[in-house]
């Protein structure tokens, strides 16, 4: 046998395509009833919801309409639907999609939230604690928040992969995690000397410590950009390797065919050469072909894999940055990364860059209290008027509860209310809490609107959504009616 042929044995080198998991696989398995290893589940009930107004998506309202839910999904929305036999009936004045907290801490232990050793491949999903926080999940559901993006490593330079979780209590991890990798998270200006602050009951209440000076912050942007650049280079190297390997395999095949064609002669030549070598008492050496030189694969690096995906726009990169110096540096530094999908979180002074943000379609994820005038490194805007000012400049706005206090997710609708009170229009606030967040986090195929085919995450309300006095009458989360009664 030719040594050459041995080289052709295909190594397991398929360049790591990120395993694309069907987003619905977890849900569909529910229909089989109880799953091995998880708590016994009730089978899905069919739910029929009537409402005076069904807000299917921002700006689209169906009057006197109904929504039909079966096996965890919305199967029909419209007027003139009739209630199937045996369906659970709910009714209210308004029905709309459940709210999404785009920046939450609900469901992750506080030690993980402030972990400073996270790397890009650190997965928040691995830190999800389904055995804890049930009372806070219920509080959040009672106020209409049905899913949340959670993030570990919130104060580290790199926080790793964020996850979207469903807030229905008492579910298994498989049911809870809607997306294990909805974004990559990095921060600027928060890492140096940051210390988690705990209240006297041991609960995490904030991050203390003095933030970095402007030069350190800009330097940390440089590090961020070079991390992204390294990820991009890693991707380039991987692609080059892929092409080189293909070319090499092609050449090998050609050579092999050529040799096969002349196999008899080649065999004879080889046998002769071996015999000659033996007679002359020399060591026989196999003939070398230049095609033996196989391209070397780049070293697999989990962190670079994730960064490469972000640099390539496969998942959004959310950067927590507040002040002018770092936002300017960030926008400049990422200009050459055309496929990057950047989101700025915090963005207290982002209005100085509204034009660029709008042009480059960079959304800003605002939160309730980006420090304030009484903190060491003071900066502009310590209230939610930021949302209105950015929106007026044409920048897409999302709203989150801040990712530190798990109890704050409950107050997301009130935060949206404050943003409205500070000038954001109601429709924009509603969009920010529903389909806007879902789109930015690549979850719009599952959540964010009331449309057939979507997961059934629905609110039944006694009044207009995001009005502070409106009460949530029922919540359907993941196709199940959530008990809202007090514990």
């Amino acid at each position, binding site marked *: 046998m030719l040594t050459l042929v041995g080289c052709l044995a295909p190594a397991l080198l398929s360049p790591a395509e990120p395993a694309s998991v069907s987003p619905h696989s977890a849900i569909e398995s529910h229909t089989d009833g109880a799953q091995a290893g998880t708590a016994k589940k009730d089978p899905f009930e069919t739910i029929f919801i009537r409402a005076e107004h069904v807000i299917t998506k921002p700006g689209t309202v169906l009057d006197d309409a109904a929504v039909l839910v079966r096996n965890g999904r919305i199967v029909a929305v419209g007027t003139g639907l009739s209630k199937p036999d045996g369906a659970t009936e709910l009714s209210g004045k308004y029905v709309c999609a459940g709210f999404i907290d785009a920046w939450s801490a609900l469901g992750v232990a506080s030690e993980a939230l402030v972990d400073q050793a996270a790397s890009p491949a650190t997965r928040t999903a691995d830190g999800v604690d389904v055995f804890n926080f049930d*009372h806070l999940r219920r*509080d959040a559901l009672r*106020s209409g928040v049905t899913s949340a993006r959670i993030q570990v490593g919130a104060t580290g330079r790199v926080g790793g992969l964020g996850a979207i979780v469903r807030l229905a209590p008492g579910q298994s991890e498989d049911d809870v995690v809607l997306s294990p990798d909805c974004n990559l998270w990095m921060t600027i200006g928060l890492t140096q000397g940051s210390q988690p602050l705990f209240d006297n009951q041991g609960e995490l209440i904030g991050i203390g410590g003095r933030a970095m000076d402007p030069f350190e912050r800009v330097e940390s942007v440089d590090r961020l950009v070079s991390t992204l650049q390294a990820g991009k280079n890693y991707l380039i190297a991987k692609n080059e390797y892929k092409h080189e390997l293909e070319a090499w395999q092609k050449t090998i095949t050609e050579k092999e065919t050529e040799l096969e064609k002349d196999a008899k002669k080649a065999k004879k030549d080889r046998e002769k050469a071996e015999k000659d070598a033996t007679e002359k008492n020399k060591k026989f050496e196999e003939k070398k072909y230049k095609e033996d030189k196989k391209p070397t694969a780049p070293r697999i690096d989990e962190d670079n894999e994730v960064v490469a995906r972000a640099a390539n726009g496969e998942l959004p990169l959310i950067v927590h940055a507040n002040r002018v110096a770092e936002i300017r540096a960030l926008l400049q530094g990422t200009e050459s990364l055309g496929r990057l999908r950047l989101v700025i979180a915090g963005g207290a002074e982002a209005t100085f860059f509204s034009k660029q943000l709008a042009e480059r379609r960079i959304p800003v994820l605002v939160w*309730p*209290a980006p420090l*304030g*005038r*009484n903190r060491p490194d003071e900066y502009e805007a*310590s*209230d939610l008027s930021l949302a209105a000012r950015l929106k007026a400049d044409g920048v897409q706005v999302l709203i989150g*509860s*801040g990712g530190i*206090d*798990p*109890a*704050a997710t*409950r*107050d997301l609708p*009130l*935060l949206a*209310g*404050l943003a*409205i*009170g*500070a*000038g954001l229009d*109601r429709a924009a*606030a509603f969009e920010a809490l529903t389909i806007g967040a879902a789109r930015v986090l690549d979850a719009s195929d599952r959540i964010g609107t009331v449309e057939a085919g979507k997961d059934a995450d629905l609110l039944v309300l006694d009044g207009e959504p*995001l*009005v*502070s*006095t409106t009460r949530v009458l029922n919540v359907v989360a993941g196709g199940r009616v959530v008990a809202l009664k007090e514990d």
Partner: protein
Amino acid sequence: MITALLALTAPLVFAAPPTKSGPESPAKSVAIRADVVWLGDGRVLEKGVVLFSEGRIAEIGTNVSVPAGVETIEHKGFLTAGLIALHGYTGGQAGEMRDDARPAMPNAKIGLVFDASSPDVADARAVGITSLLLTPNAEGVAPGLTAVVKTSSRRLLKDEAHLSLVFNAGGLVSNREPTSLSGAVAMLDQLFAKPTGAVERAHGGSLPCLFEVGEPADVLRAIDFAKRHDLRGVIHGAVLAGEVADQIKASKLSVIVPAIGVGERRRNLKSVVALAKKEIPFGFGLDSPVNNPADLRLGAVMCVREGVDAKVAWNALTSEAARIAGVADRVGTIDRGMDADVVLWSGDPLDLGSRVIAVYVDGARVDGDKR
């Protein structure tokens, strides 16, 4: 002995003392017709008219005859009395609000350090806060006298609203007496044994007290103290005050609910529900500018969502707060003769989505001059 010392070392104030008179020039007369007027005593006027004259409310009703030459502003929305934030430091320089060298300075007037031009005051005004109860920092056992100020001018509404008495551990430090809670109570008992100045006025019942507490146990200690010395007033600082609501109810003291913010523990909110259930008078603290002034209305809304009656929560921001601050004869409700402190809202003020459209203090519009 201690009080004698205090008289000598009364706070050194470098700013010119605020005046007790009204604003420099009386605001011109104006009438506002609003879709909905909340008078603050439970009455609601639809298409109501409020007429201001010389900084006061001259007339209210649905059929007010507006004098010739007086402009009538048509407002599509709500009109209410201005909000009153209790327990704040807004407008006082941080260092001026505390004196941690001496454990007792009952005659120190916090109102003297109020600076109406501070940007924090403009922030408060922008969200509809027209009066503030300024409180000395809870240091030692008797840090001084609270004051009520307007958010528009250097006008002091009341320079002596309460005598502040401290019953929580926060007032104790290890390098000067008292160093224990029992020691603090002993020192206060000494003050009241030979009362002079503000302590004497509190002892005689003419000056209410502000009892600074923390844990429910502090509340009970403060209640005992009030009973022992026959004091009246208000408790501040216990997020779980509602868990000793029966004792508070019996003591006839009222409560300043500490600032409520995003993510507030539900147990704390339930505590407010318990106070409301017992019909204990309460208002909302803000501890501004540490807290965002917008949190004042947010706190009330959160209590409503937790089960406090909307009217009770609104009164806690206005009329009840005015009673607690001892200024109910001037502010907190919309009535003839009251100060023209009024907020125009785009909609129901208990919906956070409703915006402040205009703020009037002493009849003059003040929301335009933001920081």
